[in-house]
Each structure stands twice: as C-alpha cells, then as structure tokens.
C-alpha cells in the first residue's frame, strides 16, 4: 500500500518529532536524580551518581497516599458530574430541533465564552460563592472544576455530535426509540472517541490544577497533588530536586492513565461509528 521509501521517510520524521518533543521530559527525569547544587550550578551535566535522595525526600515530606486519594476523589466526582451534564446539554444543542436556530447559537456561544476566562479572575468570587453555599474542603473544588470544564466539553461534544449523520436519529425514531434510548444507546456509544478525549483532558486539568486548590483548601489533610510543589519552595529556601522528584511521582499515574485511554480512542473509533 505505502511504498518503502515513503514509509522510511515517515518513520524518520516520526522519530525526529517525537525525540524533539520528548527531550525536555527526559531531562526532567535526569534532573530528578541530581542534587540541588548540581541542578543550579551544572544544569547540563549528568548526575554524578544515581542519587535517590530527592525521591526519599519527596516521600518524607509529602503524604502521597492522601494526596493521590484526595485528587482522585475530586477527580472522579467532578468527572462524573461534568460528563453527564455536558453530554445532555450538548445533545440538545447539536441534535434537537429548535424553531429559532438563533437560540441554539446563543446558548452555544454563551457556554463557549467561558474558554476565554483565565481562572485566577474567578478565585475570589468563587471562594465567596462557595462560602455562601457552605461548600468547604474538597467539596469546594468540585463545582469550580465542573464549571470550568463546561466550555471545553461543549466545544468538543457539540462539534462532534453535529458531525454524526442525522439519518441515525430518524432511523432510531422509526424504530420507536425514546429520547433516552436514542441518547444513551445510540448516540453515546458512537461518541466514545470524543468522550475519551474529553476524559483525558478533564482528568489532566484537575490533576494539575493549582489556583483553585491553593485558595479553597485549608486543611493539610485535604491537599491535592498539585499543592505538593509548594512544600519545597519557601520564602527563603527552595529545593528544586524535591520539586522535580515529586513532579515525576505525580506524573507517573497520569502517564499510565493516558496510556490506557489513548488506546481507547483508537479502539472506540475502529469499532465503527456507522453501525447504528
């Protein structure tokens, strides 16, 4: 199918791009084995020895079990809520009929608008809103996370659902499907790839989110992973080794997670969208 020359060229290009992109990432691994003064004074050199002090330090300073647990907790609850509500609303915006098309564009534009907002503008007002609702600790994070994901999810979901042929709906209606059947048994399975993409992005966002976490969480027992780095940077001292090592530890589950889901995108797609 593809001739050999072209194939080789593609491989070379692929490897080259991959290396270029991944180089800083590898570097981070290297840094994590260097002492603080090696990082600062000889940033380019390889570590003298395989120094695991940074990791030992990271484990000593941070309660990873609680950090992972809290992050996972917020992540799962936010994810479930945001997927349900944005799937429903995007379904309405992309596949239902409105007498006045302008209403759809208006609601869509309104929901997309949130993409333009940088999170720190929301910090103070959201804190006050949380206080008004009596939301504290980890629960204070859930709605802000759900809310900030709405714009992104709507953008992706509406775009994707619109592109599915309308004949599907008509066929389903003729078969006597209810609206729930149509949404959950016909459209949802077809939207798997985009949902996988959304899940990945949403999880990564929550995993690395710092501004809201730093403002909403008070108790050390509520801290999420992204707050780990602040344990290594004081007013007068900084431990770059600790920051890097703890970041590596934070990233590992993300890599595994991404590895798992990345396959899903492909699978979900090749399973064939036009089955319905």
């Amino acid at each position: 199918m593809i001739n050999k020359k072209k194939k080789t060229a593609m491989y070379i290009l692929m490897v080259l791009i991959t290396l270029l992109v991944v180089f800083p990432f590898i570097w981070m691994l290297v840094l994590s084995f260097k002492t603080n003064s090696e990082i600062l004074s000889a940033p380019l050199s390889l570590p003298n020895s395989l120094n695991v002090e940074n990791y030992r330090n990271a484990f000593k300073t941070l309660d990873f079990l609680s950090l992972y647990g809290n992050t996972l907790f917020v992540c799962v609850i936010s994810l479930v809520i945001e997927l349900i509500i944005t799937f429903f609303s995007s379904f309405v915006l992309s596949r239902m009929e409105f007498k006045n098309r302008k209403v759809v564009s208006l609601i869509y534009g309104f929901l997309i608008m949130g993409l333009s907002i940088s999170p720190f503008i929301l910090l103070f007002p959201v804190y006050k809103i949380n206080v008004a609702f009596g939301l504290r600790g980890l629960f204070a994070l859930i709605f802000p996370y759900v809310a900030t994901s709405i714009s992104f999810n709507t953008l992706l979901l509406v775009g994707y659902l619109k592109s599915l042929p309308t004949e599907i709906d008509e066929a389903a209606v003729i078969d006597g499907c209810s609206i729930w059947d149509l949404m959950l048994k016909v459209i949802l399975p077809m939207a798997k790839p985009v949902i996988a993409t959304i899940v990945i992005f949403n999880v990564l966002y929550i995993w690395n989110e710092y501004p809201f976490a730093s403002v909403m969480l008070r108790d050390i027992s509520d801290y999420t992973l992204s707050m780990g780095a602040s344990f290594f940077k004081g007013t007068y001292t900084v431990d770059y080794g600790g920051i890097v090592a703890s970041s590596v530890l934070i990233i590992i589950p993300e890599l595994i997670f991404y590895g798992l889901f990345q396959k899903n995108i492909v699978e979900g797609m090749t399973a064939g969208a036009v089955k319905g």
Partner: protein
Amino acid sequence: MKTRTLKRLLSVVMAGTMAAGLLAGCSGGKKEEAKADGGATTIKFGIHVANPQEQEAVTYNIVQAFNEKYDGKYKVEFEASDKESHSKNMKLEASDGTLPQIFWLDASEAPEYSDSGVLMDLSDFLSENADIQTALGGMENAFQDDNGQYGLPYQCNVQGIFYNKDLFDKAGVEYPTNDTTYEDFIGMIKKLKESDVTPLSIGSKNSAYAMWEFNETLARYGWAENIDSILSGEKKFNNEDLTACFEKLKGIAEAGAFPENMATIEYFDAKQLFNEGKAAMFGTGQWDCAEFDENIGENVGFWWGPKFTDTDYNQDIAMKVPSAPIVVNAEVADDDAVKEAVFEFLKFYYGEDAAKISYEGSIFPATNYSDVAATDTQYSMNAMLEALGAGWESPEAAPDLTVVSAVQEALYNSMFGVMQGTYEPAEALDKIDEALSYSK
C-alpha cells in the same frame, strides 16, 4: 450490549447522587473556631510557608516547645501555605470571618487589615507584660496606628551584605569596613570582576523583594527623614536625594557588579552563586545565616554597605529592623478562653526560652535578652553581631516596608530597572510617584 450500557449509566447516576448526598451532608457546620480538644484550647497560627518544619524551622520549634510545655492546656496548630497563597487566603478569610487566631502578615498589607477592623489591639498585652515590652526595645513601634498596637514583630531582620573573604583574598581586595565609601566599593567591584567572580550576586526574576542590601543605601539618602512628606504629597520620590541615590545604583551596575543573567535568576539561584564561591558578595538578612555557615563557614563576613560622601544625611546607620508583623484576629477579644491561650502563646513567643531557640537556629528574635548569644561556630551570626557592635542606630522600619504594596512593588521595579539598565534614575523615580498617586 444494551444492558451493559444501561448498567454503566445506572452506576454513573448513582455515583452522581451519592456525590450530591455527600455534598449536602457535608455542607453544614464545621466552623473553624478554636475548639476544646481533649481539654486543650487550640489556636491556629497562619504562616506564610507551606512546610514550616523545613521552611520556618525556628517558629516551628518554638511552637513545639510551647505545645509541650502546655500539653493538655493550650495547643497551637499551623495553617500553612506558601507566601502567595497565604496572602490571598488571609484576604479571603478576612472577608468571611474565618481568619486564624494569630497570623503572619506582609508589613505593607497589615495597615489595611488594621483599617478594616479585623485586627486586635495588643496594647493591653504589652502593658500587662512590661518585661516583654522592655525586651522588644521599641521594635513594636513599627506596628502602631490610630487603632493601637495592631501587630508585633515576627522576628528581627538584620540586613546587609555578606562577603566571602576567600574570594576577596584571591582577588587581592581588602575586606570592606565601616568606613568603606561608594568610590572604594566601585574599585572593589572592578577588581573582583577581573578575578572572574560575580562581585555582587542578585536575581530579579519573581524576587524583586530581594533588594535588602539596598535598604541601607536608601536609608543613607534620607529615606526615614523624607518618607512622611513624600507620602503626604509635599514632596516627590523624584527628588534630589533619591536621584543621587539611584545614580549610585546605576554606577554599581555599570561597574559590572551583577550577574549577566540577573533577569532570569531568582533570589534562590543568586544565593546559590554565593554559596558555591562564584560570587563574592550577596545581600540578604539573618535568615540565610545557617546556610552560609554550612557552605562558607569561617570565611564569611558581614558589612552594612558603602557610605556616601555626596550627601549630608547620617551615614552611621545599621539595619536591624522588625520583620513583618504577626497579628491577632479581632474576634479573639470576645472569647476569654481563646484570648488567654493567645496571650500565653505570645508571652512564650516573646520570652527568653523562645529567644534561645531562635538563636540556636541563627535567627535574631524581635526581643533582646542579655543571656542569649550565638555559639562560636555560628560564623555568619557572629559576623552580624560584630557589625552591630558599632552601636549605630537603625531606622524604625526597613525603607521598603514603610509603603503600601502597590508603592512597594513600584519601588522594587524601579530599583531593578535602574540596575538592569531599563530605566534612567529620574524615570524610575517617576514611576514610584505614579504608583503612589494611583494608590490613594
């Protein structure tokens, strides 16, 4: 296939409802007030680092000692987050009344808290404890306004220039003394530069606050004498004295004192250059003493900075000043048990035992007790004590802490602008005037 999707959906919905249920159940109560915890009255101490055990070890140790001494009676717990978050958090907590009982505040922000009435007047505490007032020796004056004594100094900062004697010897440069002038200093910088070390390490990225050595320069050009009339609008920052002062900053920069990449290194990186013997001098305060003892040891020296001959203002000025204040939540006054615990803690914090702990950690406490001293191997601290031995007077507060945050930021920006060659002295001073006009 169909049933599987349904099941999945069901579980999703159930998780959702459970979450909602949890939310509802959790939203009530849990007020963050001091509570009786096994009989002990617990008070919260809001601190500006995320990890006090490592990053504010002295305070951590004092709190531990206090908790041990009053085991079962009083207990102090930290509410800890990094400085930036701490600053945001305190503002937010002030707005919804959940401030900790005691907390650290940036000196430039504290007056605004005081104005808004969330801080307790500590005059009573001081009058009840005359010995502490004596030990503070006037350090507390920096934190008084119309509402009374709104805060007490967290620690005492001694700021100036540390130098590495070894590098001076190698470059054949004499150590600076109390009489070293600006002109001598420029010659010193040039010689050090020739010997291939960075003369004076400094970094401006995200750390414009790290200009401590130049507080002395500002003070020697009449900062304390003029600041009130500048703030009241009678005078401008762009005046003869400060222009002359900023000209000196420019001169120091042009002599090649600073690292070439000062714009991309932070205070921490600049300090590392000094620690590793790549920079001959570094301006900072006593909080770095322990680090220098470890890295430079007996070769460390301390100096107040150059004297200036083109001004009539007093040049015999030291820089031993109160650091940021710790303040007490106004609500404490309403609860006798809590008030008792807070006062006991303050008594301990400003007592002799705490001062000892402080010295052990190479930090100058805000208090002065005659029996407390540094040991022989605390080289950096001894170097500072030697400099203090000249008996010069210090200003009531460090110049950069006498203005509100917006003006303070502009001051930092302007000083580094001159040092980095982006602004001319007059232009830089205009920018501070501008910030002051907007801050009103």
